[in-house]
């Protein structure tokens, strides 16, 4: 397999790192949400359980979307090598 051009590799790596960082942040939020919902439920506020479940579902979908993005970036085919010299728009 041919190596990807340097700038493309760097851009993809940056995008993957950003997605990974975002997943970690979402996961920390979801952890906090789970403990807060449990505390609230044990404290007798049962209404919080439904809201907690909905928000947790949204956070999970966001994590899953980012995971799909990481897969797509990692498996994307390498771009066509641009021909050296002037392009048709550079007359």
């Amino acid at each position: 397999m041919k190596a990807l051009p340097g700038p493309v590799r760097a851009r993809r790596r940056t995008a993957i790192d950003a997605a990974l960082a975002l997943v970690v942040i979402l996961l920390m939020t979801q952890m906090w949400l789970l403990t807060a919902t449990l505390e609230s439920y044990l404290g007798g506020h049962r209404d919080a359980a439904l809201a907690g479940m909905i928000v947790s579902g949204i956070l999970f979908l966001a994590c899953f979307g980012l995971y799909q993005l990481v897969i797509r970036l990692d498996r994307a085919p390498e771009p066509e090598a641009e021909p050296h010299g002037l392009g048709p728009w550079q007359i």
Partner: protein
Amino acid sequence: MKLPGNGSLMTPPSLTKPGPAATDMAGRRPLWREDFSVHAAEDNYVLRRQFTKFLTLTSAGMLAGNIWIFLRSLFDWPHRQYPQTTVARSSEIAAGGVKLFRYPTENDPCILVRTRAGKLVAYSQKCTHLSCAVYYSAANNRLECPCHEGYFAIETGRVLQGPPPRPLPRIELEQRGEEIVAVGIPAGEHGA
């Protein structure tokens, strides 16, 4: 060994090539490598894609936890049956007096207090912070946890100060003649 995603963007070249100790001077693999063909560095290498997958699965686990809490809030506690237990006689407790009892099981210590106003109240004796035993402070007219100075209001059980995250679970009482009977715990106040 073939790594997942081998040759992709994120596989370091050092893992796809044998190291300097992989062959002897004649270019053959040493016998011990054939017998112990475990490549720890390669086995322990985790791609970022795999790591993201692990995090996403963790996220799914936490969603499952939230769903579990929601289902319990729908189906569990409003239907729970509590025993009816005589915990004291009315004449036993003077104003500001206390009696300890266990309800609904022998593993659930509770505290019965007659307040200075003459009202009878009962709570679980386990602090909602770390389950230390709370006691009644007649001087301050409140329940106090000695471990981390958590204070609870005697009339309602709500937290007045300190680390406890929730009010003390309240025990419902009925007075039947001379007897004081514990009849239940309100839904959602049963503690941990």
